[in-house]
């Protein structure tokens, strides 16, 4: 897993104004369910922003409001400086959406449906451009196939092609890799990277946290309709990340010697491993002390490794902490 090079994030306009600005956004559905509670969020131009949250946290509602599918109860949203309600035409022209559900027509051909989308978004026909999208998404051979004859993965590609058909500079991907095979997932992330290089801002939601960890520049966590945290991915990992030192023991222990007992030191159930958890932020990790004391107790180890907690661990602890 290669870390992203942050110096390459393009800033097409040269301005630092956010491309999407959400202020005081709330949504209460007719059923009385409050899906969003006063959300404030800014998406930076040209970034890949990952929105994480458990099922029912409000991710799709938030995206649906920004894209014009759901009416907000209170609050405002601007997309590239245009209010999404007062100024909906320029705002929506900038936005492409790949929704979570595979909702496509059945009897249309791939070519017809993608061209339909482009027209719907007010753009004159451009067969050469549509051809290039279909080729990028490995759909070109299927262009005359009816959508109902396509596999789920192919349908997903069609939905992406539709979302890109009007050349948006903001792209929403709502759970784009749910139920998608490895190959398509890889293609999709290559495409996302390519889009970002061309200055497209990408906002995605995902359940595969490792994807957010790999792809995103910044991460927002939403839970119960509230933004819990928005942070640069690396800062987040550093700030909340814990490291673990695992020692493989020469000979198994039945219990920790009383002198070594501490909250941060755990013996594995089979007694062959000691796991020491420490905070990367503190100056004193305590590793030296631990090793010295192990030595004092005559505990030898044959190997050791350290591991960083993943975004998933961080996410789980955040969401659990709030609920």
């Amino acid at each position, binding site marked *: 897993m290669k870390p992203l090079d942050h110096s390459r994030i393009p800033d097409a306009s040269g301005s630092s104004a956010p491309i999407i600005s959400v202020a005081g956004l709330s949504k209460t559905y007719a059923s009385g369910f409050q899906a969003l509670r006063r959300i404030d969020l800014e998406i930076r131009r040209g970034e890949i922003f990952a929105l994480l949250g458990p099922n029912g946290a409000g991710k799709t509602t938030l995206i649906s409001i920004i894209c014009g599918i759901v009416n907000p109860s209170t609050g405002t949203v601007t997309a590239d400086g245009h209010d999404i309600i007062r100024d909906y035409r320029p705002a929506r022209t900038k936005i492409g959406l790949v929704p979570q559900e595979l909702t496509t027509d059945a009897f249309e051909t791939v070519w017809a449906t993608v061209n339909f*989308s482009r*027209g719907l978004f007010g753009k004159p026909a451009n067969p050469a451009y549509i051809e290039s999208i279909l080729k990028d998404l490995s759909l070109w051979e299927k262009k005359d196939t009816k959508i109902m004859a396509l596999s789920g993965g192919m349908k997903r590609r069609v939905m992406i092609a539709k979302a890109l058909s009007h050349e948006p500079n903001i792209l929403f991907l709502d759970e784009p890799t749910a139920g998608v095979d490895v190959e398509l997932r890889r293609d999709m992330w290559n495409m996302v990277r390519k889009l970002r290089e061309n200055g497209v801002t990408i906002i995605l939601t995902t359940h595969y946290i490792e994807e957010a960890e790999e792809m995103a520049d910044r991460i927002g966590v939403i839970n119960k309709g509230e933004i819990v945290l928005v942070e640069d991915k690396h800062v987040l990992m550093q700030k909340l990340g814990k490291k673990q030192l695992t020692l493989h023991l020469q000979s198994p222990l039945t219990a920790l010697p009383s002198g070594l007992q501490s909250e941060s030191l755990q013996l594995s159930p089979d007694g062959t491993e000691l796991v020491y958890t420490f905070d990367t932020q503190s100056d004193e990790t305590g590793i030296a002390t631990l090793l010295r004391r192990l030595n004092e107790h005559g505990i030898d180890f044959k190997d050791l490794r350290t591991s960083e907690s993943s975004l998933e661990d961080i996410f789980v602890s955040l969401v659990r902490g709030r609920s």
Partner: protein
Amino acid sequence: MNIYGIKAIYLFEMERTWRTLMQSIASPVLSTSLYFIVFGSAIGSRMANIDGVSYGAFIVPGLIMLSLLTESISNASFGIYMPKFTGTIYEILSAPISAVETVIGYVGAAATKSVIIGTIILVTARLFVDFSIQHPVWMVAFLLLTAITFSLFGFIIGVWADSFQKLQVIPLMIVTPLAFLGGSFYSINMLPPFWQKIALLNPVVYLVSGFRWSFYGVSDVDVGISLGMTFLFMLICLAAVWWIFRTGYKIKA
């Protein structure tokens, strides 16, 4: 104005028409031909002329209206119901297209289709009976006005319906009876005086009467009133559509 958007919806809907050519055009033509054979030739040959028009010719405008009404409603209601049903409406809602433009696309396509069917039935009718059209301009005007009005009405039904059953219930339970009782097959002057008054509450009476006037110059009700009532019904439908998009009724949470 998002002209490309209107065009995209319109062509998408027309594409559906061509794709389902057999059921969209062949079946109304077939059923109308049956009406002509049964009512026009078999029964009509034993009927007296009505207002100086032979019975076979008399029912031509009514039959065209009958198809125009049912086709307009079913085309338009199906056109907007399907994206709601499959979920593809997300794309319409997220597109930079206004409510007016969306309605022009859907209703325009539905009305176009029913005008095509109306014209085909008119031509088919000519094979069975002899008739003349005294006011062709008014005939076209009534044809278009009715197609647009009832396509709007169909659009409303399509938005309102949340199941295939509901999609069928209004055309079946309300529109078909109104159309049959609207004087397609008889002059309402043939009814007893009391039922004549009741019949005047039926909007279809004005459509059929006005349309028949454009053929033969005779009508049950004054042609101006016919035109006025058709416009009134169109305004009611337009107001309902405006309200639907204003409130997001059943299309936008």
